[in-house]
């Protein structure tokens, strides 16, 4: 095992951590458009460009739609590409998210998670990226600025892995992470450059029957983004799903390789189990809320309550087996959704959780809490009440309200 390398402690906001990680990852093309709370990323990166600190072509596009399109096209040409957005910007990219994953372009994108209009609101929730759940992108959510930094670096390795070749979005909670200054241990430029390596291309069959690297190369003309009809389209989609499945082990491998050099890992890369070994009641959440939840769990443990937490770091692909195994002995699970699925039976994470325990007998009680929309603060008292609810469910063996709203005026 390699020893942990020397690192520099920096005071960075989540957005600055993203820009710094992208700077170190030897990105060829960045195309981006400003939107709160992502703007600092673009501003910071522009500074690096203006000061000659990066060898990157920065394309200051006229919309998020063009930002992602330019990244996709640059990626197809052979460049390592990065962009960042939030909220309405991600919604505007919606069409191109599918095209990017369909073209198997390993674009990396940071999402400073923010509410969707209307009413317009610039603060944090997960509505933006949850709405892109089925777009064929790997989705990861970070807990703090340190993890934001580490995840962006890891994302290039995951996206560009030849068994994956899928775009990756890394979520950081708007303002809570994007704008809050934290201590971040940063690796040196050389170490990061070596870790991400140079981009590799798979050999694919060309139209002339030979094989060539999958990119737009005048020496090996290739048609990328064709029309595929009833006879081939389905196979393209199945291959994307296979790549998603392949990414489960790649994310774990990258997480552990990164741990070897940095000394930091995030669970197994897919999920982080906190005090779950003997837990009877547990919550499942994404992003920065996990930090507060861990404090709540610590307090409950001191009181002798067997409480735990599962933080879902990777939401797409959904690590079903890992979650089932981590929550194996838990009797009541509270799933936290910082997003609303209008007219649905609970939030998007809840759907997944409840569904995956259908075949498990005996399965735990699984209830849902929708919280923190539009940046609404969720207090420790409110979070603690979730565990109290779970204990009551275990005691009464009854679920009165499977879907609840936390911290809301009714």
């Amino acid at each position, binding site marked *: 095992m390699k020893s942990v390398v020397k690192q520099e402690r920096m005071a960075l906001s989540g957005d600055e951590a993203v820009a710094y990680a992208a700077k170190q990852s030897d990105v*060829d*093309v960045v*195309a981006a458009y400003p939107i709160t709370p992502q703007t600092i990323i673009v501003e910071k990166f522009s500074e690096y460009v203006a000061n000659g600190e990066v*060898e*990157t*072509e920065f*394309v*200051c*596009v*006229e*919309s998020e*739609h*063009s930002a992602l*399109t*330019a*990244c*996709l*096209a*640059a*990626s*197809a*040409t*052979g*460049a390592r*590409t990065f962009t960042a957005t939030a909220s309405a910007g991600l919604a505007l990219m919606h*069409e*191109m998210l599918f*095209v990017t994953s369909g*073209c198997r372009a390993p674009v990396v994108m940071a999402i400073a998670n923010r509410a969707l209009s209307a009413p317009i609101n610039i603060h944090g929730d997960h509505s933006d990226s949850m709405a892109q759940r089925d777009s064929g992108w790997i989705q990861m959510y970070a807990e703090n600025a340190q993890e934001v930094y580490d995840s962006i670096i890891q994302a290039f390795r995951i996206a560009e892995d030849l068994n994956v070749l899928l775009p990756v979005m890394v979520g950081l909670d708007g303002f809570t992470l994007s704008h809050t200054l934290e201590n971040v241990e940063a690796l040196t430029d050389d170490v990061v450059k070596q870790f991400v390596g140079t981009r590799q291309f798979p050999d694919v069959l060309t*139209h002339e029957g030979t094989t060539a690297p999958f990119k*737009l*190369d*005048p*020496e*090996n*003309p*290739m*048609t*990328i*983004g*064709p*029309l*595929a*009809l009833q006879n*081939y389209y389905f196979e393209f989609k199945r291959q994307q799903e296979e790549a998603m499945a392949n990414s489960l082990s790649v994310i774990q491998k990258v997480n552990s390789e990164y741990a070897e050099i940095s000394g930091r890992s995030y669970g197994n890369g897919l999920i982080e189990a906190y005090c779950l070994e003997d837990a009877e009641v547990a919550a499942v959440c994404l992003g920065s809320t996990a930090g507060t939840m861990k404090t709540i769990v610590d307090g409950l443990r001191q009181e002798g309550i067997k409480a735990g937490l599962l933080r879902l770091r990777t939401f797409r692909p959904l690590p079903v087996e890992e979650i089932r195994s981590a929550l194996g002995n838990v009797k009541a699970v509270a799933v936290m959704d910082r997003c609303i699925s209008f007219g649905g039976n609970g939030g998007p994470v809840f759907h997944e959780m409840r569904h995956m325990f259908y075949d498990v007998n005996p399965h735990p009680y699984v209830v849902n809490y929708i919280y923190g929309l539009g940046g609404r603060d969720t207090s420790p008292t409110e979070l603690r009440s979730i565990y109290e609810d779970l204990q009551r469910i275990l005691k009464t063996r009854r679920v009165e309200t499977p879907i609840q709203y936390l911290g809301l005026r009714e």
Partner: protein
Amino acid sequence: MTTQEWKFTTKDIAEKPDLFLSGHRACAGCAPATVLRLIMKATRGPTIVTESTGCMEVVSSIYPYTSWATPWLHTAFETAASNASGIEAALKIMKKKGRLKQEHVDVIAFAGDGGTYDIGIQALSGAVERGHDFLFVLYDNEAYMNTGIQRSGGTPHGAATTTSPAGTAIPGKLEYKKPIAEIMVAHEMPYVATASPYYWRDLITKVRKGLEVNGPAFLHVFAPCPRGWRSDPARSIEYAKLAVETCVFPVWEAVNGVHQLSTPSKLLALAPQKKKPVTDYLKGQGRFRHLFKPQNKKMLEEVQSMTDERWQRLLAKCGMTQKS
């Protein structure tokens, strides 16, 4: 080789290998397919092509086949210019980092009128403002033909389409064709030109000029569509000639914002008696058939007067006036 020394003969054209190959599934009489083939004959070296969604994309890339003997990318409808932006940015940085095998790679973006006048104009305007080095080719068949002949910002006044049908209350499209090439000139870009495939030498010379320009170039090519125009497939190139002869579609170029008529239109400016009435161009096209009914006489006059008005405006820009 610069454009000045570069003289394309019919023999040269015939001998140069095609980059847009036969076997594509364009309709009989499709002028856009001819336009693409001619344009690809005018390339000067390694070239990456990108296309917006549209007829030419659909007919040329049906998996697992392709008509493209050059690297080719399609992503979406409104993205020809943003694709080109990304490709050009990648080529630039890869060259700087020593990862590009070629000394230079040209980038050509193709889009139809929908992908240019309408849904693609934002990306196009942005890409030109940023100054990417690429040639944007608009093949203008004057409606959304790929989806079944719906009106676009490029559909001319009076034309019947499936979303501007010639009804009893409304006789076809009431609005006028957007002056897209002038909009591009207003971007103060280095090279803008219009061309017709009938004058093929003029067309390919303009392609070469557009590629040679350092920065963005815009080429507006008139491209008759017999399916959408309800016209005889055998007459597509003839309509491309008549459009120029009637001044419905004059051919010109603007180098660094300075307008100049190209020879076919210049001859008409010098010999105005040779300028044909618009009816010579309109007749025979099913999309204009209703204009020849007595109740639509006014509309027919409007087409002529708007054509004349735009022609005069163009002449003034070119520093010419026409004696009436």
